[in-house]
């Protein structure tokens, strides 16, 4: 703040000395605009997150993510369609993820973190489920979102793993096991969650921050000075059009960048999966190995 203040004082001194005020005031105002926008840009937080072994959220999003290729193409697509249909009907997002290896991580942590990072389930309902299978470790885990853990209790998840997944996986019937588990899970969750009519219509918030107000203030200054300077014909004309274009574009860009930072992830349409809803996971669920 201090160098800025000194700068202002210096500029003010210069101005009071100079008679040709219109030229200098315009420069001062523009200098301020630059300084203010610089400060504003510097105030943006750096969006960086620690890297982990969790795979990045798939783009385009899918509910079946068979990284370990336990299913063939058509099995994977059929299962995905089932999950999408269930999501459309109930808004519940059940994600099936297979991986090659946990790379020394606990499967419970891995599955919970994956659900958390991908944001599986709707944000307000927490109705997400992750069925994670690690091929190399021969382990599986059902992680439940905050909303589903009261229905899919840990004991229920354990039962699904022991009844549906392990017997099938032991015989190499991955597709049958996953389909049975899905049928079991969706059967238990039926009636608990409903899809909102016309959901995913996000309200766009208009955020006015102090610096935008400062820009407005400068426009006011310009406007007032053009009125005060009405007798001074040359200034009145000079300040008018050129500066209003300048300020118009400055404001336009400032508001534009303010609203574009909102989170957009709903690009899909038709029969495909629309995207994860931002649900969260608290460590619930159960695992097993085959």
């Amino acid at each position: 703040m201090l160098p800025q203040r000194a700068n202002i004082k210096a500029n003010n001194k210069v101005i009071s000395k100079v008679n040709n005020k219109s030229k200098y005031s315009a420069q001062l105002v523009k200098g301020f605009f630059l300084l203010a926008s610089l400060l504003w840009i510097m105030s943006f937080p750096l969006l960086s997150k620690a890297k982990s072994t969790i795979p990045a959220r798939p783009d385009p999003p899918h509910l079946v993510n068979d990284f370990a290729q336990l299913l063939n193409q058509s099995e994977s697509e059929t299962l995905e369609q089932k999950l999408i249909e269930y999501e459309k009907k109930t808004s519940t997002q059940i994600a099936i993820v297979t991986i090659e290896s946990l790379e020394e991580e606990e499967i419970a942590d891995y599955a919970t973190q994956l659900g958390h990072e991908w944001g599986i389930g709707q944000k307000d309902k927490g109705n997400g489920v992750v069925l994670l299978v690690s091929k190399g470790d021969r382990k599986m885990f059902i992680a439940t979102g905050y909303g589903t853990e009261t229905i899919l209790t840990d004991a229920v998840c354990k039962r699904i793993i022991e009844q549906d997944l392990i017997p099938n996986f032991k015989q190499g019937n991955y597709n049958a096991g996953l389909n049975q588990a899905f049928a079991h899970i969706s059967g238990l969750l039926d009636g608990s969650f409903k899809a909102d009519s016309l959901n995913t219509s996000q309200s766009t918030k208009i955020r006015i921050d102090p610096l935008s107000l400062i820009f407005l203030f400068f426009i006011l200054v310009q406007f007032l000075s053009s009125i005060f300077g009405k007798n001074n014909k040359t200034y009145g004309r000079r300040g008018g059009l050129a500066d209003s274009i300048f300020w118009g574009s400055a404001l336009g860009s400032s508001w534009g960048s303010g609203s574009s930072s909102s989170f957009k992830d709903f690009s899909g349409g038709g029969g495909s999966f629309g995207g994860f809803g931002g649900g969260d996971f608290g460590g619930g669920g159960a695992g097993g190995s085959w």
Partner: protein
Amino acid sequence: MKKPILITLGIIVGVIALIGILAFSIFGGTYNQLVSLDENAKSSWSQVENVYQRRLDLIPNLVSTVKGYAKFEKETLVGVIEARAKATSVNINPDKLDAGSIQKFQEAQSGLSSALSKLMVVVEKYPDLKANQNFLELQSQLEGTENRIAVERKRFNDTVQEYNTYLRKFPQSLIAGMMGFEKKGYFESDAAAKKAPTISFE
């Protein structure tokens, strides 16, 4: 020649007003940020308490199930009950989550963790109990609860770290000191709670 002076004056006043607005918005922004980080830490603390409470709630059922099968393990069962009572008695004021009170909370809870892992070791001697459906369900609930505890503790530490980092930096440190915001404590990773039950020859 009066008008140009008026304009210059207007600009000077404007500049002072601008500095005022900037200073105000920086102070206000910092204060608001401190408040919201503080609230984040408090709400993740309440999640931590929830999951520990969940574990406390499971224990009476667990004890009564085990009692039916393992009549000769009275000492272990009493140990669990006592540790539970001790853990229940520790209450932490969410407005004062400093290192000392977090440590006190953690000590009481880890006492229960080790009593529980002793119980789980003892249980291995009773095949009938291990086949009991009720016990198996309780066991998976207990495992799930330990996972939840790990998750919520980590999230609490993350929010506290964010809060502490923000708090200790300049110029927030000045405003935080003025407004009475204090550094919060972390959960230390304790060996007893993380390790799988191991057999001890005591």
